[in-house]
């Protein structure tokens, strides 16, 4: 990836990012501020536990009151959580890969 066409493309893209219009920059600033406003506090273990209990309660309620035409829910709340959080698991797998990469880099 060192040919001159690619280098020129990179330079042009750098330049276009450097010279964005003021309106777009202001909107990006807003977007950043909104994102920073988000709650980034990690959920403590008791949060997950109480969340799991609530989920189990909801699942139990669904199990009792669901009509025959409704799709089945997972009886195991852990399994249900896994299905609902596939994206999170995917990200965790990515995190594990990055840590492994760092360890490999450090050892080499």
């Amino acid at each position, binding site marked *: 990836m060192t040919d001159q*066409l690619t280098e020129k493309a990179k330079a042009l893209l750098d330049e276009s990012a450097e010279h964005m219009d003021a309106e777009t920059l202001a909107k990006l600033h807003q977007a950043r501020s909104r*994102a920073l406003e988000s709650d980034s506090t990690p959920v403590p273990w008791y949060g997950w536990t109480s969340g799991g209990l609530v989920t189990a309660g909801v699942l139990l309620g669904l199990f009792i009151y669901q009509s025959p035409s409704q799709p089945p829910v997972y009886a195991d709340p852990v399994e249900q959580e896994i299905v609902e959080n596939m994206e999170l698991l995917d990200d965790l797998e990515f995190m594990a890969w990055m840590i492994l990469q760092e360890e490999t880099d450090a050892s080499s």
Partner: protein
Amino acid sequence: MRHGEGYTAYDLFQDDARVQEKPELDRFLASVERSAFRMADIATRNKDDALDIVQDTMTKLVEKYAHKPSDEWRPLFYRILQSRITDFHRRSGRTNRIFSWFGSEDDEEEVYVGVDEAGPVELLAERLTLEKLTTCLELLPVRQQQAFLLRAWEGFSVIETAKIMKCSEGSVKTHLSRATNALRNSVEEDDD
């Protein structure tokens, strides 16, 4: 969520307060927001959609990964961004419909094409303009866009790009090769 209207001095004051709470994260987001917007803009061809994608990406990073070491933020950020762009194309249903003549997204596994060596690269590079580059990138399938922008612009390695795009290294090479050839052909065609 749309952006823009009704932004007051009080809002700016509040923004500053938020920045003071998370200065390192703010600096990181400021360092990637422009390239993220350009990537999303090229992928969506719509500034409002691009801003929404960047906003979602920033928010998810802050919510889920702010507590992670700062050197892990960059690959995570671009991984989230690419996922959002892919989701956008899935929702809009454009990917296969509009760009179908470029070939299927699924038939590119492990087929490294190699770079077409036709024409002096130095001369082609001189003729490349931002407008031509943007037009060419916008016409590429989204996976080729991603591979090219992550490798050529952001400088991620093949293995990092593969992880970010959730595909094999062979696919990254194939996407990249096709993108580079398309760019080369685009410049050459303009000379004819």
